[in-house]
């Protein structure tokens, strides 16, 4: 069977790329990109073949997917985990996003990283990430997924900390890894719970067992909650969202690939993958929805005031991921995956654009030192504008279809509160995106005068991927999401989610444009449009030839106002003080606890040991004093001993 080779090759090729580059990359120097990029390209081709076969349900995929078993990984008696890969339609969708964005980011990096000393290292890491991410979506057992889960964490760590000399980068890398680990603990426990309940870790087999109604060692909601914890960590949802903005310390292609388009979606993928479990744990679904939508509004509120271009995008990513979880929580499985794919493309695009901007202004990331760039870097500008429109949810771009579907299903599935918050967030999204556009591309230039003359458009290696990414950002929605709720994607994913949706008893009515769906449509688009206009008013966005003098004072008013406005402004600026809270909890208090335990170890535990030793020595020193050196003292001792001895014997004998 050809797929027995193809599927493993998808992951194996980047692995080979990583291994070879790691060994010989240093010698290849500036040519180091050929091997990794080639491998990813090959991998992309294979992925496309596999995805096409799967989505068309041709060949071996006819029966809902096809799996390959590689070897007995952990043969520990009843605990027998096989290393195996499995492709179904969900995996295929993810494969498309991962390999496509991955390939384009690889290409983009050729230009972006061209002058970096660690050129070969960067490509080695990127390939490592590709391997990990591909295994994550391909893995056929929870443990395999967990392996990849950790490996993407490792790649993320390596890439965030790529510029290790920067202390902030090193700290951010560590923070990302550790915060992720918090979630991983939950995921790991979830896997243990699954094994304890089902005796297997094969995803399909264990899920089948879990939903069969057989008695379980661990209640289903608990398992779902534990698995969700893992997703929360990896997808940076509240309260484990703190690592993602810091992760922007990594090179921008990394932010695009890992922290926007692929890895952070792993949580969404995991929940979607485990949809039968979640579907039977409605209480957990509410938690998922709540955390998702809360993260969405929280992140959006922070994005309002950030001045670092990448951070705005990072918070935007958080917010959009929140949308996805909200979708999962309300049972809009397909919509979540839809948004995942769309977001993967347009957020990848936005990040690469921001990288292009940063490149152009010589590694400046502060938007207060940009402005008026649109004429200088037109490709970047236009592609980024496409991305911004897409994310704002303006039809007919990709973001509109997915977002509209999420909000629509939330409303129709009875999660009015989710819809309401999501609705507000939609407006906020459009606002902060156009704030970004305004500050970056329009108005007068605030660029450092020294840099000003050197601003230039990026090389083709960078600009071509931008263009290529802009295409799906525009067309994806129309291609697979239209007509609403009955697009291609819905048909693809129906085998994956159908059963759960039936179990949840939600038979969505047909899409009624001239009904509730139409109203929601208008509302969503409307608030986005209003937000864009407001941003335009404040930040001088020039849109479709309309130009307005920026009224930045409206923004500055907020910073100087009193009362609630001021509080909100400060909260947004300080990211709702989460970093300070963590600092207090983990660095100051946690550090004190650790120091205390160390003190305890030295003084009490070891002190007891040394104390016994010292006590022994003291006893010896005390006892040696009876050796006075004088015979008569000795004799008296003997005489007293004799008397005691006599007394003892008299007592013993007289007994």
């Amino acid at each position, binding site marked *: 069977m050809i797929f027995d080779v193809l599927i493993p090759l998808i992951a194996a090729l980047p692995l080979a790329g990583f291994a070879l580059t790691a060994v010989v990359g240093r010698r290849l120097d500036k040519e180091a990109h050929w091997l990794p990029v080639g491998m990813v390209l090959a991998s992309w081709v294979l992925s496309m073949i596999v995805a096409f076969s799967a989505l068309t349900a041709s060949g071996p995929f006819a029966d809902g997917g096809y799996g390959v078993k590689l070897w007995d990984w952990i043969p520990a008696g009843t605990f027998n985990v096989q290393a195996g890969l499995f492709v179904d339609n969900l995996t295929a969708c993810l494969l498309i996003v991962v390999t496509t964005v991955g390939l384009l980011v690889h290409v983009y990096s050729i230009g972006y990283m061209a002058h970096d000393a660690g050129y070969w290292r960067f490509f080695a890491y990127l390939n490592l990430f590709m391997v990990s991410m591909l295994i994550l979506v391909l893995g056929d057992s929870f443990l395999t997924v967990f392996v990849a889960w950790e490996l993407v964490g490792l790649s993320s760590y390596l890439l965030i900390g790529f510029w290790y000399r920067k202390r902030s980068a090193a700290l951010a890398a560590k923070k990302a890894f550790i915060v992720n680990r918090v979630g991983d603990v939950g995921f790991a426990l979830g896997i243990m719970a699954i094994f304890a309940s089902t005796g297997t870790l094969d995803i399909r087999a264990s899920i089948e067992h879990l939903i069969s109604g057989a008695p379980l060692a661990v209640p289903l909601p608990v398992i779902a909650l534990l698995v969700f914890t893992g997703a929360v960590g990896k997808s940076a949802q509240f309260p484990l969202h703190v690592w993602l903005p810091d992760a922007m310390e990594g090179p921008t292609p990394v932010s695009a690939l890992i922290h926007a388009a692929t890895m952070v979606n792993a949580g969404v993928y995991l929940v979607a993958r485990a949809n039968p479990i979640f579907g039977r744990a409605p209480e957990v679904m509410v938690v998922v929805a709540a955390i998702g939508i809360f993260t969405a509004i929280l992140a959006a509120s922070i994005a309002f005031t950030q001045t670092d271009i990448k951070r705005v995008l990072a918070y935007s990513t958080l917010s959009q991921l929140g949308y996805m979880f909200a979708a999962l929580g309300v049972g809009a499985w397909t919509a979540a995956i839809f948004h995942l794919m769309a977001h993967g493309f347009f957020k990848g695009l936005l990040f690469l654009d921001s990288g292009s901007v940063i490149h152009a202004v010589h590694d400046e990331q502060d938007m207060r030192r940009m402005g008026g760039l649109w004429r200088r870097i037109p490709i970047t500008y236009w592609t980024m504008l496409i991305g911004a429109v897409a994310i704002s949810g303006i039809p007919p771009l990709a973001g509109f279809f997915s977002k509209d579907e999420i909000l629509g299903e939330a409303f129709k599935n009875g999660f009015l509160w989710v819809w309401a918050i999501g609705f507000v967030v939609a407006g906020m999204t459009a606002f902060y995106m156009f704030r970004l556009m305004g500050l970056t591309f329009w108005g007068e230039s605030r660029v450092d005068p020294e840099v000003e003359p050197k601003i230039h458009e990026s090389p083709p290696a960078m600009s071509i991927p931008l263009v290529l990414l802009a295409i799906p950002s525009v067309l994806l929605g129309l291609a697979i999401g239209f007509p609403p709720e009955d697009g291609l994607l819905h048909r693809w994913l129906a085998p994956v989610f159908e059963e759960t949706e039936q179990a949840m008893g939600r038979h969505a009515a047909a899409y009624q444009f001239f009904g509730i769906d139409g109203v929601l449509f208008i509302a969503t688009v409307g608030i986005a449009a209003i937000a864009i206009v407001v941003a335009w008013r404040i930040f001088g966005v020039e849109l479709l030839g309309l130009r307005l003098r920026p009224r930045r004072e409206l923004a500055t008013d907020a910073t100087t106002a009193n009362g609630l406005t001021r509080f909100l402004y400060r909260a947004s600026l300080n990211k709702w003080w989460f970093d300070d809270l963590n600092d207090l909890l983990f660095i100051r208090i946690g550090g004190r606890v650790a120091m205390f335990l160390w003190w305890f170890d030295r003084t009490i535990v070891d002190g007891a040991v040394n104390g016994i030793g010292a006590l022994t020595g003291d006893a010896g020193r005390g006892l040696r004093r009876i050796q006075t050196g004088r015979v*008569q003292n000795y004799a*008296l001792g003997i*005489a*007293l001993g004799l*008397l005691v001895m*006599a007394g003892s014997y008299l007592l013993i004998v007289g007994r």
Partner: protein
Amino acid sequence: MGIPDTIPILGIRWEDVLFVILAATMLGTGLLVVTMRDIIRCGLAMIACFGALSGLYVLAGAPLVAAAEVLVYIGAISVLILFAIMLTQTKSAPARLVFQTQAVPAAIAAVVLAIVIALTVSATDWGAVGQRIAAGSEEIARTLFSGYLLPFEVVSVLLLAAVVGGVFLAKQERGEPRL
């Protein structure tokens, strides 16, 4: 044998009187030995003590032992000790304290020891206690050379070893200060 067994008026047996006198002498001189300041007088008191002791041996019906006591202790050991006293007598020595600082505890210990022994002795049934019987020299000799031949020979080896070592230790090496 004209002397009666008892003192006429008091009705106390002569032997008892003698015993008491000898015992008192022995204990008294013994105490002097351990308490007197002048060590030479201590030595002399010890000779007196041993004399009284040999008297007691006679009373106990062991004249041979009594004779040996006089010969060995008074004749040999005491003289040896007196010689040693002379040899080691420094001019400054007598002014010093006789007793250790622990004389009082020592006294208490000794008294307790004496009491314990006395109580034990009186609490013990010594079995077939008969009247005093004097053992004849001939009998002693027979015992010595039959049952106690080996001990007798060992004693000679012991004395030989003591003499060999004692001579080595006490003899003056060349270049050593005279005593």
